[in-house]
């Protein structure tokens, strides 16, 4: 039956007028339903595409870490040369050992809470009233005073230190277990969690995730959040917090059958080993253990076999007892960073730059080996808040709804009881989200995703143009859809549905060919200095997150300033390791021109902030609220 045909059939008698009418109504209803379902499906597909963009870029960023991590290793390997030139720099870079010989009591007592403080005041030992107090206070946007933050952190560390690497938990007919994931960073969430943990240490169990890592905090802005909120005591808070992270247990085991960890497993995951390791020595994914030896050549060999660090006459603060052997470090990385996939086997997680992808066969093998039945993990944002894979053996739970953008995803948590069938509860927060119609939410999400994708494209502009021109033999300025999609995917390293996204990104001619330069027409990087070369600007823009981390590491007193010398030394190393073809003098000139030299030091946050992207169509968008 054709659903498009509304024409009446035949004339009929008066008694069938009613039939004709209802038949018409039926057909009309079918038309509308058909149209609506098509529209709704396309809306959902757009939502999916936007989510895919957010995810690939997030993972690609994480992958950038691998390079950064290699860079730190590279620096350590070239330790001698750096040390000769700048012993101060070396001490600052590698001397991250906590000087917490200071007693907690001693430190906390120095931090006074003024009478004028209006925020929540916690009472130790903590009780459930303190939890309520905090939740109410945070709802009012209040900030917990540093004194209490420090008290909570010291106490949390003390309690966590007594816990084993894996918490053992049992369900019972009366006891239900809820499993969820923390989601985006926030000081407030952290405080509520820690306080709740201190009040109910036997009922609340925390596992370490990949973002409970001081390096990751640097990259993703949590460090900045803390320093901003706690101008006076932020540095100390960060120090203790980094310590607390390392004492978080690696996982939880429920009823000896269910393993709850953050990321996943690998084919070599050895739970027996993981039970034994000194977990607090696992500092950061970006600081793999390295052996510093008299003989530079044997370094790499030693590292591969997992040898311990050899101290260098007290010149390094990183003594052997402070690091995990490499194979143990790798075990923890796998737990925190791996992702399950449909493909069998175990292979490096290239999206993230750490951990691996593990297939259903790996899951079966490892679960069987340790007599487990199920793996519950988080680490990946899922549109419905949860996902089951590997024949029901692996469950992903993601509790932060609207993680990337309003309307991007639901959040979920799991409830388990002793009959072992997990129940899933989904939700999506903000009244605004619930009240807005789907198409508006999708529009918002889509614009946001396209925006960050375009910024990404811009940061690789030179490489992209080169790739386009390579394929455009006739120099027509045009490529076929296939050629354009190929160049985009290869250059950006993002596995995205380019054909479906193309209408948002480029213009096409009447033959369906792409005008590839239109990729850059609506967007450009604001040049902080007019005369600066475009490639230089582009490079600095592209690596700004990495540079931010490196600068933050050098700036160990978190002042926001580093000396011009340090800047130059760092830039030189960065330059050579990342094989960037920028002359040192160009960067020098730029820094000087931007007038950022204040007493010979550079405010690197200002320096990096100066590179931002201008979206030409921004102003237009704001008025009509539709995607470009």
């Amino acid at each position: 039956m054709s659903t498009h045909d509304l024409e009446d059939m035949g004339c009929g008698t008066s008694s069938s007028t009613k039939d004709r009418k209802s038949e018409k109504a039926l057909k009309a209803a079918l038309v509308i339903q058909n149209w609506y379902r098509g529209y709704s499906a396309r809306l959902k597909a757009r939502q999916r595409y936007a989510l895919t963009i957010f995810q690939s870029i997030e993972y690609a960023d994480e992958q950038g870490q691998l390079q950064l991590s290699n860079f730190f290793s590279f620096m350590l390997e070239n330790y001698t040369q750096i040390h000769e030139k700048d012993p101060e720099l070396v001490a600052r870079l590698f001397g991250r050992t906590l000087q917490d010989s200071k007693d907690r009591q001693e430190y906390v007592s120095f931090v006074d809470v003024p009478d004028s403080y209006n925020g929540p005041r916690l009472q130790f030992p903590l009780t459930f009233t303190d939890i309520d107090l905090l939740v109410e206070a945070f709802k009012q946007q209040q900030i917990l005073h540093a004194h209490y933050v420090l008290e909570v952190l010291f106490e949390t560390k003390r309690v966590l230190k007594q816990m084993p690497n894996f918490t053992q938990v049992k369900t019972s007919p009366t006891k239900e277990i809820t499993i969820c994931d923390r989601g985006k960073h926030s000081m407030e969430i952290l405080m509520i969690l820690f306080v709740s943990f201190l009040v109910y240490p036997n009922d609340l169990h925390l596992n370490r995730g990949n973002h409970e890592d001081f390096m990751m905090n640097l990259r993703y802005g949590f460090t900045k959040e803390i320093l901003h909120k706690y101008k006076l005591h932020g540095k100390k808070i960060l120090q203790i917090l980094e310590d607390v992270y390392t004492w978080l247990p690696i996982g939880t085991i429920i009823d000896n059958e269910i393993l709850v960890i953050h990321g996943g497993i690998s084919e070599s995951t050895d739970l027996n080993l993981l039970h034994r390791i000194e977990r607090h020595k696992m500092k950061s994914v970006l600081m793999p253990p390295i052996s510093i030896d008299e003989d530079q050549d044997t370094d790499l060999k030693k590292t591969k076999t997992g040898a311990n660090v050899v101290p260098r006459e007290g010149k390094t603060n990183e003594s052997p007892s402070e690091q995990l052997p490499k194979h143990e470090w790798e075990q923890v990385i796998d737990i925190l960073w791996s992702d399950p996939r449909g493909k069998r086997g175990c292979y490096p997680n290239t999206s993230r730059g750490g951990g691996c992808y593990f297939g259903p066969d790996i899951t079966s093998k490892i679960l069987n080996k340790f007599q487990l039945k199920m793996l519950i993990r988080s680490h990946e944002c899922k549109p419905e808040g949860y996902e089951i894979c590997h024949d029901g053996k692996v469950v992903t739970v993601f509790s932060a709804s609207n993680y990337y953008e309003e309307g991007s995803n639901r959040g979920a948590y799991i409830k388990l009881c002793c009959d072992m069938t997990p129940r899933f509860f989904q939700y999506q927060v903000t009244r605004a989200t619930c009240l807005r119609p789907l198409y508006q939410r999708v529009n918002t999400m889509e614009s946001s995703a396209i925006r960050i994708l375009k910024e990404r494209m811009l940061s690789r502009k030179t490489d992209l143009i080169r790739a386009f021109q390579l394929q455009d033999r006739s120099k027509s300025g045009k490529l076929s859809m296939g050629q354009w999609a190929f160049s985009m995917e290869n250059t950006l390293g993002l596995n995205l549905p380019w054909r479906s996204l193309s209408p948002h990104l480029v213009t096409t001619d009447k033959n369906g060919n792409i005008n590839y330069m239109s990729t850059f027409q609506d967007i450009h990087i604001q040049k902080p200095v007019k005369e600066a070369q475009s490639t230089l600007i582009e490079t600095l823009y592209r690596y700004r997150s990495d540079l931010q981390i490196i600068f933050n590491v050098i700036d160990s007193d978190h002042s926001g300033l580093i000396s011009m010398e340090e800047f130059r030394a760092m830039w030189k190393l960065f330059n050579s390791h990342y094989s960037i073809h920028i002359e040192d003098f160009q960067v020098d000139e730029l820094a000087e021109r931007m007038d950022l030299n204040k007493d010979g030091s550079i405010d690197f946050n200002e320096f990096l902030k100066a590179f931002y992207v201008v979206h030409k169509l921004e102003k237009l968008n704001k008025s009509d609220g539709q995607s470009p």
Partner: protein
Amino acid sequence: MADDKEREGTELVVAEYHRKIKEAFEVFDHEANNTVDVRIKAGAFLPGLSSGVSREIGTIIRSLGCCPSEGELHDLIAEVEEEEPTGYIRYEKFLPVMTEVLLERRYRPIPEDTLLRAFEVLDSSKRGFLTREELIKYMTEEGEPFSQEEMEEMLSAAVDPESNSIHYKDYIAMMVVDES
């Protein structure tokens, strides 16, 4: 000569269709890793979700620009399902069937004026709008009825909160712009 060119042209078209279909498939099948052996998970493990198989496949087919009715969709799914329905649909089976659909330009979308006329048919007194109750009645009782979720979704965008009615001409105009 002309035949060769024509065949080559069709081959190119088919190749592009294949890539388009693959893209759409991959976006919904998150476990895939650029392998051809791609499966869409059905609602098999998720209690409470209705007929998982048609859910995502239907979305994929419609996202490729086709507008099958629910009945036509079920027929299509029957064509690509396994002999013993496992709740999975294999990409190898889906691809040729979907390619044919695209080549034959089956299930063409509804033109805007047809849609408008449909609303006008339901609006027998020619007021220019439908009340909330009327729309609900038609959409959930006639044709291929909406689920509650579908009905709520449509109402959230279509109903003008002040008059509590659906001014269908404006609604259509808004949806059409949103899609372009």
